[in-house]
């Protein structure tokens, strides 16, 4: 009985007839599919998600990440800052405009009127000391008429703003800007939220009207961000067309054949079409900031397509008389290795789409994975079929004749195979690896929303930055949930614990301030005692506390309905992950030390009792009958946890992204190592192929770190995909090299041959992609980060492969038998 054939051979034998047996039929089918997917692609929604920061993570507790009653927490939140160029905002003109705009926002269709907050909201209150008593009132009295404002009234508003501690929250530190916060009504669709953002923007501009030189407005928030991003899309068409044209021209030149260049470029565009069509078919949308996924597909398609074209030409030049024969032989040699590596990469990226918590990351990863699948199908079937219909004479001749532009690069690569240059290259590579690994430790995870991707005329980035800078207490806010027994708002011992925690958290670097019920209560109690700072302490008497919390509006979100939650609002200077880590550590330490102190005094409860009490509150159904009979009403220590708020959302998102990026890169490398092992069957090949890819990836991370660019939700899947695409090139180059050496060639000659074959394709594709990218950039006049990073990545991966592969081959390859089995039948 004949020995069982290797899997790759069996795969080749199984798939080959499907593609080549009935070529006209297959070609027609693929053309039909392309048309259908093209139609689907035109229906794809390119839309910016306005809940891109929402994530559940282990640090920010599941289910506690958003407070639906908090306009700052909701995905449809919008912030409008009205600013004056005058000395301050306490003028009749400014306050008139602020009031008009606040009322216009509240009356706007699609807005949740209860969510609107500004200085004119009655809920913003202050407490003042009057002779023998205190008084709590709205910061701006309801009967205040801006146009009839008197200087004493304006001075009073200024004092009330300070008393109510609104600086940094609703009034900027320089007191020239005021903030209006609002959110879309519950249940509004994304389109409605965007429509609302447009209306709000128009209303804000109308309010400043002809006085625009004295006043300005800035708008930020999810829906406004989506509108700004989508506004940039039409402007991308022209540079994309120019870039694609330049890429095709360079490819035609470097491949030495207009036909081959055109076919590869066309194949790449078809792959992109399939990607977008498939994306629509699976019901997904594409975010404008994730538009770079198209570039990844394009890069993968051109790099692999160039291999197919060069392979075809080599077969044609090697004596196969027809285009079909050349195409078939080339397909048999290249299809399985390239498809395996690309599909392994697609699987790893798809896994990222499954495990990632960030919606934007999931969406981008799915788009990248579908793009890679499209490349495998198009370059594995459509391109070979098209090549099979090309006559061998013209392209084959033009490759051997005329000026060979790639010859000098091939020669330099060949020179690296000497012992001394190889050692030199490896030493330099090791040093670069060390330095890059060190530098990339600084690489941070960021959100796509922080990054460029806006049209150059967009006001959004400047508006959002200005609002975050002027109103840090509104923008960089993190909530700490403090759970306790119901009716604890007036329990002095509970308030003292919350107060102590708030103070400890206020001392964490990165925290600019805190707000909590105990702090507000202390302020009122001060007023009870004629404003004396010496009475700015918590009273022990429950009746006094009951009176003290009476003027504190529930809208301040410092306590919940039954007073079982007394959250602490933290205002951060910035949103560095280290701040979240320090806060999490402080909260954990507090829970431990506070509970120990509490149990030391209250001998009638202990940790087990209080755990049971919490369980009874959160999951009463899980109690046993005996437990349910217990009296669980005794006081327990407060329990704190980081909960949410806008800054918390973003910090958690970054945390989640940082975690998943490490998992994704390590996971992909493991999968690719297995794929290479399966294809080539030895550790030397795995090392030789993976090392340049790993080095290039680390160098790219170091470069991003140096430029201050974070790994983003849209960038991570692209980075992972590029790693896979680069590995395909290395795989083909190295198997060429190994095959030549196994045939008796010296390393130098083998590498030159390899470069002349697979290497030529890699070089041509890389240069074409870089030229196309640069042309696209020049056409927009806009420094688009995705394109620049793509150009840098192609260059770095190309350089690493070009120099490292032969240097490693010098040491790892000796006389070996060829192990890629090429079926011939």
């Amino acid at each position, binding site marked *: 009985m004949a020995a069982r054939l290797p899997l790759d051979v069996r795969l080749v034998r199984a798939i080959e007839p499907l593609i080549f047996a009935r070529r006209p039929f297959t070609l027609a089918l693929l053309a039909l599919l392309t048309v259908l997917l093209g139609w689907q692609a035109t229906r794809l929604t390119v839309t910016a998600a306005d809940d891109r920061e929402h994530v559940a993570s282990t640090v920010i507790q599941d289910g506690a990440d958003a407070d639906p009653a908090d306009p700052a927490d909701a995905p449809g939140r919008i912030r409008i800052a009205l600013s004056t160029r005058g000395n301050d905002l306490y003028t009749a003109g400014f306050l008139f405009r602020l009031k008009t705009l606040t009322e216009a926002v509240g009356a706007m269709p699609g807005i949740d009127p209860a969510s609107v907050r500004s200085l004119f909201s009655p809920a913003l209150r202050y407490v003042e000391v009057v002779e023998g008593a205190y008084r709590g009132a709205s910061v701006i009295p309801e009967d205040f008429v801006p146009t009839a404002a008197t200087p004493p009234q304006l001075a009073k508003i200024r004092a009330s703003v300070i008393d109510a501690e609104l600086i940094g929250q609703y009034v900027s530190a320089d007191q020239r800007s005021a903030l209006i916060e609002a959110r879309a009504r519950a249940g509004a669709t994304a389109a409605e939220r965007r429509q609302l953002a447009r209306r709000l923007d128009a209303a804000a501009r109308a309010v400043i009207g002809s006085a625009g030189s004295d006043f300005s407005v800035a708008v930020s928030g999810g829906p406004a961000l989506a509108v700004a991003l989508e506004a940039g899309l039409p402007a991308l068409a022209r540079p994309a067309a120019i870039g694609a044209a330049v890429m095709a021209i360079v490819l035609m030149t470097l491949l030495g054949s207009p036909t081959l260049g055109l076919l590869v470029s066309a194949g790449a565009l078809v792959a992109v079409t399939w990607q977008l069509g498939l994306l629509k078919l699976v019901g997904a949308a594409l975010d404008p900031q994730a538009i770079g996924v198209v570039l990844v597909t394009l890069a993968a398609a051109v790099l692999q397509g160039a291999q197919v074209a060069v392979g075809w030409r080599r077969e044609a030049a090697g004596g196969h008389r027809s285009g079909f024969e050349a195409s078939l032989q080339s397909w048999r040699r290249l299809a399985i290795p390239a498809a395996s590596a690309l599909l392994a990469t697609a699987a790893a990226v798809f896994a990222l789409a499954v495990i990632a918590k960030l919606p934007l990351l999931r969406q981008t990863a799915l788009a990248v994975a579908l793009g890679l699948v499209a490349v495998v199908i198009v370059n594995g079937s459509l391109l070979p079929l098209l090549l099979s219909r090309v006559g061998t004479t013209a392209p084959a001749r033009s490759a051997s004749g005329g000026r060979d532009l790639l010859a000098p690069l091939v020669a330099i690569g060949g020179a690296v195979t000497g012992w001394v240059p190889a050692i030199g290259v490896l030493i330099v590579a090791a040093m670069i690896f060390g330095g890059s690994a060190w530098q990339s430790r600084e690489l941070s995870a960021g959100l796509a929303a922080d990054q460029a991707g806006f049209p150059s005329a967009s006001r959004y980035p400047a508006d959002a930055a200005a609002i975050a800078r002027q109103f840090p207490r509104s923008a960089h806010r993190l909530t700490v949930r403090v759970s306790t027994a119901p009716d604890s708002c007036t329990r002095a011992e509970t308030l003292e614990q919350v107060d*102590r925690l708030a*103070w400890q958290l206020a001392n964490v670097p990165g925290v600019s301030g805190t707000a909590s019920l105990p702090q507000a209560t202390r302020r009122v109690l001060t007023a009870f*005692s004629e404003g004396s700072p*010496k009475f*700015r302490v918590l009273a022990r008497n429950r009746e006094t506390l009951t009176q003290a919390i009476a003027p504190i509006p529930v809208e301040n979100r410092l306590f919940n309905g039954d007073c079982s939650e007394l959250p602490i609002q933290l205002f951060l200077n910035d949103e560095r992950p280290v701040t979240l880590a320090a806060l999490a550590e402080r909260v954990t330490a507090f829970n431990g030390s506070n509970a120990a102190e509490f149990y030391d*005094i209250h*001998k009638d409860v202990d*940790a087990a*009792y209080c755990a049971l009490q919490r369980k009874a509150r959160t999951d009463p159904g899980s109690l046993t009958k005996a437990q349910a009979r217990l009296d669980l009403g005794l006081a327990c220590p407060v329990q704190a946890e980081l909960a949410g708020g806008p800054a918390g959302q973003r910090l958690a998102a970054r945390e989640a992204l940082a975690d998943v990026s490490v998992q994704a890169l390590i996971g992909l490398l493991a999968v690719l190592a297995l794929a290479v092992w399966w294809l080539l069957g030895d550790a030397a090949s795995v090392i030789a192929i993976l090392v340049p890819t790993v080095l290039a990836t680390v160098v790219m991370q170091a470069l991003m770190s140096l430029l201050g660019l974070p790994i983003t939700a849209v960038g991570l899947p692209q980075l992972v995909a590029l790693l896979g695409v680069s590995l395909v090139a290395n795989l083909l180059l190295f198997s060429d090299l190994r095959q030549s050496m196994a045939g008796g060639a010296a390393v130098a000659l083998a590498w030159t041959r390899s470069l002349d074959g697979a290497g030529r394709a890699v070089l041509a594709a890389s240069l074409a992609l870089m030229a196309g990218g640069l042309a696209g950039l020049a056409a927009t006049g806009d420094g688009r980060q995705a394109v620049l990073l793509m150009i840098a990545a192609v260059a770095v991966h190309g350089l690493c492969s070009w120099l490292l592969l032969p240097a490693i081959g010098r040491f790892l390859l000796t006389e070996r038998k060829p192990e890629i089995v090429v079926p011939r039948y």
Partner: protein
Amino acid sequence: MPATPDRPVLALPSSRHLLLAVAALSLIGVAIGGARAQDAAAPSAEPTPIYQPRAADLEPLASKGLMLDVVDTGKRLIAVGDRGHILASIDGQKWAQVTVPVRSALTAVRFVDAEHGWAVGHDAVVVATVDGGKTWQLQNFQPELEKPLLDIEFLDANTGFAVGGFGLVLRTEDGGGNWEPVSSPAFDTDELNLYSITRLADGDLLVTGEQGRLVLSSDRGRTWKRLKSPVNSTLFGAVAVPGGGALVCGLRGKAYLTRDVRAGAWRALDTGTSAAFYGCTALDRARIALVGDNGTIVIADPASLATRKLTGESGTAYSSATLWQSSLVVSGERGLQSLGRVR
């Protein structure tokens, strides 16, 4: 003990039945107790006071938190404030927090020399130092009174008085070893808050408080006499002026000066503000600083009664001030600030 099992009704038991029932109940009690111990450890029935003295947390931003008093000991500045914070500084800029055995807010601090000092605060706390403020020992802690101590004054290293909320006055004759309540109709009848106690140049003790309360002792605190006040709103502070006189300051920018407290004849100062003064301190013989709401600082000349208003930095309330190396150092809601030279 909160866990109470359902009990069987015992109707007219015989003694044997009663014994059996008691035994059964005991067993049920043990079983329930055991179950409770399994689910939640068995509690002890011993009552423990809820409020016990606990060491203050040491935090980097202590000097930026609420600070209520600052004094010049002759060698350094010592400041006290919220959460049992006591801080020391030798330049008025950088502050070091020291360990204190209580977390109660400390409202006032006095030193009789560079080494011996006392601080008072909420929970009727008194802490003392004998090493210039490096270490502090607890002398009094009475949270059950629910009355704060708001100021302290010593006549010498042994005899001192602390005054506070709801007419609370404590006295020591042994340097704080024992603090005894002082009873006098001048304090007891209406239990008004007593905000300050000041030793005048002639040795008298002047207490100020709510509703313009002025109380004087001319016999080292043995007897106290209520004085006729120039105002019926709260007086938060007082400062001695040469010759047995005093300047008092309080709500709504009110300040009055007399050359002889015993004789009265208070004259109002035109401070130019309606902001409350929460503290007043003699910077030198010719200048008294009045500090208060909205960062208000007014400098008064006790000789001419002329005043001039300085602009504070914080916009929030100040509670006390002192002069250190020619700079004005203030304490208040935003902590300790050195405001530079005062003309």
